[in-house]
């Protein structure tokens, strides 16, 4: 029983940073913006969030600061692609590289230090439920916040007019422009939202999941987030499922080592990437699945004809 509680509880925590960043990236991609800089945005979010918590002791301020700093970085991407009409792939790589450099600079003085972890919620009755209580209800508020956000984003994208506009911009920016929508502003807002969510994901990583700062601690999660969107074929429930599956995988990796299986640690460290590639190939081979929900204009720069 104990290992199961550990895995279930750990899965929720491990998936949370991925889920925040993935929901943000999903909104950006739905508007047609392929922002590959998630790794860099998560890194600056992690570094600035950590520094703020170390200085103020307030996790709320840390998450807010992480979100703001990562959002500022995402605005660089927005400026490159929307104002200067630069290629989206190259622009994403550019803020990815820039973000890793900036995060190293922000966190320099704090390398290897720790902060107090983000407090778990005290849910008196729920967390007393045997087994499930400790697994599911002994978590911090951002774990539940991620689930709430997923539902909110799903509702927003599928059921509201704003969601319809965002999807329309992602499908056909030219038609949306002709209809009178401000494509640039909508895309910019979606990118900024994506940046903020990546920042929260990063800050969660450095101040709650493993409350320490080490350069390079995002460790490829930003790229896994981008892959999660493809796994989820641009649909919120599937992206969410993918994030939890991935969280479980991370935990499985830890438990296999804990149980004492004689597997080289490097194979375990490489396994998330190997599995990502395999799943990516399986899902991508189905063109109908990919084309159905992927925004038509994803990755294309848009310039209004006037």
């Amino acid at each position, binding site marked *: 029983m104990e290992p199961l509680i550990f895995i279930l509880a750990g899965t929720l925590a491990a998936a949370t940073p991925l889920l925040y960043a993935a929901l943000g990236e999903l909104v950006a991609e739905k508007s047609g913006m392929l922002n590959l800089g998630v790794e860099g945005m998560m890194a600056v979010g992690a570094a600035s969030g950590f520094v703020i918590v170390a200085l103020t002791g307030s996790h709320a301020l840390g998450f807010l600061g992480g979100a703001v700093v990562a959002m500022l970085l995402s605005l660089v991407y927005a400026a490159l692609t929307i104002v200067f009409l630069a290629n989206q*792939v190259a622009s994403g*790589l550019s803020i990815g590289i820039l973000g890793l450099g900036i995060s190293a*600079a922000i966190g320099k003085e704090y390398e290897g230090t720790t902060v107090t972890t983000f407090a778990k919620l005290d849910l008196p009755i729920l967390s007393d439920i045997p087994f499930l209580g400790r697994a599911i209800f002994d978590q911090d508020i951002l774990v539940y916040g991620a689930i709430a956000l997923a539902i909110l984003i799903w509702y927003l994208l599928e059921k509201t007019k704003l969601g319809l506009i965002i999807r329309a911009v992602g499908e056909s920016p030219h038609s949306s422009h002709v209809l009178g929508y401000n494509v640039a502003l909508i895309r910019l807002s979606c990118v900024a939202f994506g940046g903020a969510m990546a920042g929260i994901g990063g800050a969660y990583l450095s101040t709650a999941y493993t409350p320490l700062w080490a350069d390079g601690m995002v460790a490829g999660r930003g790229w896994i987030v981008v892959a999660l969107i493809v796994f989820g074929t641009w649909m919120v429930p599937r992206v969410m499922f993918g994030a939890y599956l991935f969280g479980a995988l991370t935990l499985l990796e830890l438990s296999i080592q804990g149980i004492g299986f004689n597997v080289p640690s490097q194979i375990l460290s490489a396994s998330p990437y*190997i599995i990502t590639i395999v799943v990516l190939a399986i899902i991508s081979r189905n063109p109908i699945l990919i084309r159905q929900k992927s925004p038509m204009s994803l990755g294309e720069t848009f310039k209004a004809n006037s």
Partner: protein
Amino acid sequence: MARFKIEPRTENSLFAPLLVSSIAIFLTAIAGSGLFLFYGKSPSAGFHAFFIEPLQSTYGIGEVLLKMGPLLLIAQGLAIGFRAKVWNIGAEGQLLIGAICGGYLAILFEGSSSPFLLVAMVVVGALGGMAWAGVAAWLKVRFNANEILVTFMMSSIALQLLYFLVTGPLKDPAGFNFPQSITFGEAALFPIIMEDTRVNASLFLGLFATVIAWVFIQRSLLGYQLIVGGLAPAASRYAGFSANRSVWMALLIGGAAAGAAGVAEVAGPLGMLQRNISPGYGFAAIIVAFLGGLNPIGIVLSSALMALIYVGGDFARLSIGLPSAVTAIFQGMLLTFYLASSFLLTHKLRFSTTTVSVKSTPEAAE
């Protein structure tokens, strides 16, 4: 009233690519001054340490040339792929696999004094890099898997494979348990070509690649097909060129170049396999390729600049105590400013003395 006017370019300008790179460097210099001030250093002291000091000694110049080699080699390979709009961002992993394959030969033929050993290492390293990139090409062609994600993930896997090998099968048995292989024999090392420095003959690999890339792009039908495939997939299909072949070629060329660069590192300054083989050359080469305007000659200049930034970062850390993160920020800024100013490749600014009129037309198909 004199105002700027933005107009689309109707024909390619010869000077625009040079102008764009110069503007990017200029803007990076301005932002860099801000960065130096932020760290409490005067910009002049910062720039002196970063860009002048490395060039004041034979040792410094040697280090710049040493770092320029792999960047030049990898960027020439990547640029060909980028022209075809095939995004190989995993050159770092292809470099590591090249280093492992070439290095394995050096370990296998430890006592060899054959002049062919080094040649064989380069060939095997290039093939290894090709194979690693080939996985991404196969997954792209066969399953339509995104090559950006696959090449990145393959890089992370390559790194773990290297760690596994240097802590296990390829570890030096007499190495006090350090995660590294045996030191390569003399025949498995590139000869030094500049006295009192670490510059070795592998620099010629980069220069050779430059010539090949130039001929390939300027003079061959294959190179032309590759570019057409990237610019207009539909048109190229109509003309009978296969998009799949573009994917294969772009990734295999990039992988071969990166793999050879990996051999240049282990058979050059390192002389063994170890955990840290590359200070991110595979990622920096992406910036080099863009900053050089994806042009073989431009890449020679941009690889020299990027190498100078690497070495300058080390000098600035030692002489004025700037953190090493500054190097990474400089690299990121260069690419960011390059992309912003590359607007001028397709548009031109003109002074007009008449009323303001911002004219624009649809962007050329991206």
